């Protein structure tokens, strides 16, 4: 089949392949110029201050105040101890009544002057704050759907130490996620793999999942007499 087909029509030039080659080269070039195929660095969490309103998926949280006061008021704590109280206005956006205690999970990290507050090794025996929904001078435990509730996270402060100057709160993000195994849906904190800790390495893990932080809220701490 060496002879050209009769008819003498000029052979068509192969256009498609050069075009594809050029496109592929352009794709590679542009990707390389944009930093390669590595995962884009995550957006740094939004920085916010007092009064900021953060959408956490399952709830919208307004960060109203951080105050150090003696216990006893609003049914929180005992009157001879000092508590760092984070005062939030939380609107439950899910379809079901939630317990206020879950705000401890929703705020994935709370630091006072850079030191973690809900550290299990802290002086607080429960290893975390007491979280209540305050209404009319009493503390309760529920956040009803669509109803804004005043939620207070109370951290007991060690005695004889000066109160912190400021707190930094990492707000996590919830998503209505499907369970891999059961295929049912539930609200879950959105996580991302991060560098392994020493413990992870000991278990042979290359990374571990840590909740993402959508906003970092810095509140000045005021001390109530």
């Amino acid at each position, binding site marked *: 089949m060496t002879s050209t087909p009769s008819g003498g029509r000029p052979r068509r030039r192969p256009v498609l392949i050069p075009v594809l080659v050029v496109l592929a080269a352009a794709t590679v070039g542009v990707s390389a110029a944009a930093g390669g195929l590595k995962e884009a660095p995550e957006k740094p969490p939004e920085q916010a201050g007092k009064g900021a309103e953060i959408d956490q998926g399952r709830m919208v949280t307004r960060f109203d105040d951080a105050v150090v006061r003696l216990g006893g008021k609003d049914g929180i704590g005992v009157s001879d101890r000092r508590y760092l109280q984070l005062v939030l206005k939380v609107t439950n956006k899910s*379809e*079901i*009544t939630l317990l206020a205690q879950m705000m401890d999970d929703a705020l994935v990290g709370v630091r006072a002057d850079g030191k973690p507050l809900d550290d299990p090794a802290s002086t607080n025996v429960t290893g975390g704050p007491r979280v209540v929904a305050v209404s009319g001078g009493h503390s309760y435990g529920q956040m009803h*759907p*669509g*109803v804004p509730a005043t939620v207070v996270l109370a951290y007991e402060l060690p005695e004889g130490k000066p109160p912190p100057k400021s707190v930094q709160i990492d707000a996590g993000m919830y998503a209505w996620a499907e*369970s891999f195994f059961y*295929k*049912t849906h539930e609200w879950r904190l959105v996580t991302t793999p991060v560098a392994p800790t020493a413990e992870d390495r000991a278990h042979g893990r290359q990374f571990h999942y840590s909740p993402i932080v959508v906003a970092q809220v810095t509140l000045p701490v005021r001390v109530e007499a």
Partner: protein
Amino acid sequence: MSAAHGLVPEAPAAPLRPLPPRRVPLWRKIVGGVVGIALVSAAVYAQTFVLTADEKSDPLTVSGGMHDELRTSHFSARLERVEFARTVRVKKQYSTDDAKADETFMIVKVGLTAPRRPTQVTSFVLTADGLRFEPTDRVSLSATLGDKWIQPGWWRSGLFFFDVPADKLAGARVVVAEPKTLFGDDYMPETSFDLGFDRPKARQMAGAAKDVYEVSG
């Protein structure tokens, strides 16, 4: 077997008579195609009836209105009364607790009995837009039906207290169900009562709320 057999061309009969080419008329082809497509579509459509994993753990609901006696295999329930109050005063043996609502408490009186075995129930309000309000924790559980046992042979009446904004009560339902266990059983029964509220009625009822509702517990 003999010449006779050989003579009679019985077996070659089949090969010798070629099958007439099966002519399928066009209309039958079309009908067959349409029927096939219809069957396939029906099969695909039937897949939409398959319950999702979430739906599989849904309870079996018996619905009714006020004063209807709704029977399930685990309990029977009837909604006896709905009232509103701004404060609920719980009189205990040695103390009195006042619970104040954000707006008003909806106080639901439910009568219950069990057909076979003792059981316990809980309740929640399901609003028209699907929000689920658990009974308020401002009123202690001991004043409600939530910690009482329902037994066969007699009806037991009790209260549930809800802190629901009045504007969410239009079209709301009160659901009585057995509390979910950790490893939830499937097909748990529940009863769902239509309160029969529209917006003006809910507002009017909540507006006419009592100041104080006393209950022992």
